């Protein structure tokens, strides 16, 4: 029963990460939003950026293997976005839920 409630809860709350680009005055705009759907990541936003993310992937900083992560890696990809985009010019948020 508890497992079922947890599963329903997980599906009710969509996990997503916003990626912001820094403008000249210090303001940030969202250039992409990556969310989890059926275990895969879907990113929407700036076409070139999203295509780049899809093609090149991001680094997995959870160990020193240099492994690349792609949309198919689902939650792991979302979790690692903030370690890849942290320069200030492009920053990723923590995982949010809605």
């Amino acid at each position, binding site marked *: 029963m508890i497992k079922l409630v947890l599963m329903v809860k997980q599906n009710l709350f969509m996990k997503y990460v916003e990626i912001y680009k820094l403008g000249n005055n210090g303001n940030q705009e969202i250039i992409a939003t990556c969310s989890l759907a059926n275990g895969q990541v879907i990113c929407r936003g700036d076409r070139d950026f999203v295509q780049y993310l899809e093609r090149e992937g991001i*680094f997995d900083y959870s160990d020193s293997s240099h492994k690349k992560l792609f949309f198919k890696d689902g939650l792991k990809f979302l979790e690692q976005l903030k370690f890849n985009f942290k320069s200030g010019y492009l920053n990723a948020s923590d995982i949010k839920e809605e």
Partner: protein
Amino acid sequence: MESSEKSGKSEELIKQLELFRRETDKEKELKERKKDYSRDLGGYGGVFFVKLKDDGEGIFKPKNKEREFLGRRVEPGTYYKRERAAYLVDRFLGFNLVPPTVIREIDGEIGSFQEFIPEAKMWHEIRQKDRDKESLKTEMFKLWIFDFIIWNSDRHESNFLLDKNGKKAYAIDNGLSFTADPLILWKNFDGEPVPIEIQEKIKQFSSPEDKKSILKDLLKELLPEEEVTACFKRIEKIAKLIEKEGLINDDKISFNG
């Protein structure tokens, strides 16, 4: 006071060395100007956009907000010094890749403060035909060699910028450098002829010896001695490879040169 005649150094050389020893005007501005306002940019570790009074902006990364990267030796609380160390190496090499970076206090927090690059572009914003241009290739080649020198374990698409014309590269986010962590490099120019412009810079760095010793002293204030020694060994190794073959094979360079 040693006269230039006695030391055997020309007036010009002494002047040049003095300039290397001193902070540049830009560094002084970044260090001394008061904050006008700042914006928390969020994300992992603290990153702030800071507008200075009387002009100037920068990216501030406070020491106390630095957070761990799993699987890496580099310790939080040292990244801000590594940012400054990377800038100094770049300045002495004359690569002009790292925006001026100083260490200063803002709102009671010490951290690295790097000049902001307005209208910066990311790699994904550069069209393919522009990516292939020779001038940009030279910039990327320089970045590749620079990352060997500072032993960067964190160079990827979002850790370098291009100017608004897409011709000049800027190496940012250099905090995970100088330790013996595995390298993460952007492009690979393994075995390709090193552009003459870069060969010249490396040659110029090697002489005079005094310039190297000034840099060594400055780096020792920021990094453990063994990391400084390893960095100089890598520069020597790269200089030798270029002198001998005019190219660099990446398997010939290790952390210790």
